[in-house]
């Protein structure tokens, strides 16, 4: 009797230890991620200390470590993100609206849906190769580059065919890359809009599109906006597709060679020429610095570039979080 009682107590103690050990294992796995993040950021900030200053943001790049700057890369990234957002947001939301509001469940819709999830999993290098073939080389349809110019009456915009590794090619590639993510995020936001809202609108005699445009989309806007900003911040950090496009890392000026607002005021046509200009971008510039022969650039300038890139990402993410929190409080279904 007492022997089996002892055995039971031993067994119980063993099980309690197991419970305790497993909980700590799980806990450390989860909190370990925070530790990794801290070490990670700490190491980078340490290397970048004293190298990030105002001049670094506003200088064109240079081979000399102390004169290196990020101006061209920052403007390149802004152009890329701007154009690709203009292209991908309407198309992405349009596709999401079709899939959520119009498409009848069935084989074809399921295929489109599956296809979008698969596209979201395609490695970004493959998108780079797609962009290289479609935009940079235009399927090899031209034997040698042809210099052309687009005449808009008041200004001539020079460009060439095939496009080559210009801003427009980069933005097009990033658009294709970010579309699946935006579609999926927008779909989730649309799904969160309650059906009663739609029914109320129909009951008042609104057509399908009137319902979507005046009721569903406004209600889903915060969710869509959050998803779009998060997708944009992902796109901002994409390096591989741009490297594959052959974007020129030696470019040190902003696309269109825009030197500032006063420059833009006197030469407004530069704004239209910029999409057809060569470019570099923040993550690409960082990659080039990591690869550079100069050890000071490899270590410190690259780290400084990373800090600037991360600050941009954190800014975008916090905007997304603010929007999410703001509207979560306002709207209660």
């Amino acid at each position, binding site marked *: 009797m007492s022997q089996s009682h002892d055995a039971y107590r031993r067994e119980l103690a063993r*099980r309690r230890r*197991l*419970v305790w050990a*497993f909980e700590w*294992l*799980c*806990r450390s*796995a*989860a909190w*370990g*991620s925070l530790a990794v*993040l801290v070490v*990670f950021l700490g*190491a*980078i900030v340490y*290397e970048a200390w004293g190298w990030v200053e105002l001049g670094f943001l506003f200088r064109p790049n240079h081979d000399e470590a102390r004169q290196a700057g990020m101006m061209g890369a920052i403007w390149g990234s802004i152009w890329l993100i701007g154009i690709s957002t203009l292209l991908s947001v309407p*198309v*992405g939301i*349009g*596709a999401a609206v*079709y899939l959520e509001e*119009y498409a009848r469940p069935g084989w074809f819709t399921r295929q489109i849906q*599956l*296809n979008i*999830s*698969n*596209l979201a*999993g*395609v*490695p*970004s*290098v*493959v*998108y*780079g*190769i*797609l962009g*290289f073939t*479609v935009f940079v080389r235009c399927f*090899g349809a031209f034997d040698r580059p042809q210099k052309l110019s687009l005449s808009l009456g008041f200004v001539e915009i020079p460009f060439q065919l095939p496009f080559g590794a210009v801003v427009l090619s980069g933005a097009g590639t990033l658009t*294709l890359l970010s*579309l*699946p993510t935006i*579609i999926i995020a927008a779909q989730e936001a649309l799904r969160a809009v309650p059906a009663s809202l739609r029914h109320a609108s129909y009951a008042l005699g609104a057509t399908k*599109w009137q319902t979507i445009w005046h009721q569903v989309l406004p209600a889903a806007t915060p969710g869509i906006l959050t998803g779009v900003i*998060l997708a944009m*911040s992902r796109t901002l*950090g994409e*390096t*591989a597709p741009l*490297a*594959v496009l052959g974007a020129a890392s030696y470019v040190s000026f902003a696309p269109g060679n825009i030197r500032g607002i006063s420059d833009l005021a006197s030469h407004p046509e530069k704004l239209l020429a910029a999409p057809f200009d060569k470019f570099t971008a923040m993550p690409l510039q*960082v*990659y080039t610095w*990591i690869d550079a022969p100069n050890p000071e650039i490899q270590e410190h300038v690259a*780290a400084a570039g*990373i800090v600037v890139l*991360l600050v941009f*990402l954190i800014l975008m993410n916090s905007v997304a*979080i603010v929007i999410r929190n703001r509207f979560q409080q306002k709207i209660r279904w």
Partner: protein
Amino acid sequence: MPAGLRRRFTWQSATEYGIQAVLFGCALLSVLTTLTIMGVLFSESWAFFQHVSLTEFLGDTEWTPDLEQKQYGVWPLVFGTMQITFLSGLIGLPVGLLAAIYLSEYAAPQTRRVLKPVLELLAGIPTVVYGYFALRFLTPYVIKPVFEGLLGLNVDGFNALSGGIVVGIMIMPMVCSLSEDVLRAVPQSLREAGYALGSTKFDVSVKIVVPSALSGIFASFLLALARGVGETMAVSIAAGQQPTLTLNPLSQIQTMTSFVVNVMKGDVEVGSMLEKSIYAVALMLFLITLLMNLVSQIVLRRYREVYQ
């Protein structure tokens, strides 16, 4: 039928149909993208396989398309990719799953509110940054002291291990959030039944919740590994650019993705074999990740059907 109830042509209905058609076009663009990717990869790879036989591609053990003596055996690149994927899985999968169990079974709501954004942040850091961290921090300050200092092994400045570790860190948040979703979808009644039978929290978590969610967890693993296969920048920065057929994680390797980037970032001669070989490698990469993604999508859908 009274005339008023018949469907008549109005501008309103025309606009409605027009808008629907435009939206359908937007959705169709994704299909078009897939078709273009496949078309481009297949047609250019076709040109490659006109010159290189499939037996050489899959039978040879040397990959030297940029040297004088050209050999097109893809295995060194495949081995490099497999090494990175294996190492990253070794770290990312168990840690991600344990963190997911913590978040879904143990953590208080306030803890979740802190940890979730941290994980999102970790997942949102660009991969070049991971590459920098691996090359400048992990290799000199962690891997070299441990393996060279303590164990006396030779460690290359570029090595597969550092790349594998950072890719593991990178896929861990993905495993965590996907697995957490499937763990939370396990009905509460199963857990309560376990407790009613005298199970401890460990028993419930490991012997009831995880097995019930196994197919979903498997799908999340597959999705994360596919991400590891396709990971480019961290690997090409940290793991080197030397295609070698090796299983030694301390030596320099080259993956399929880093081969593509390494060739393309320079000036490639249009129409050269080097350029064509990129499409062949990219096609392989695309097919491998597509297969992994498809299987995990199908498994996830089945899983959702079981519990909903």
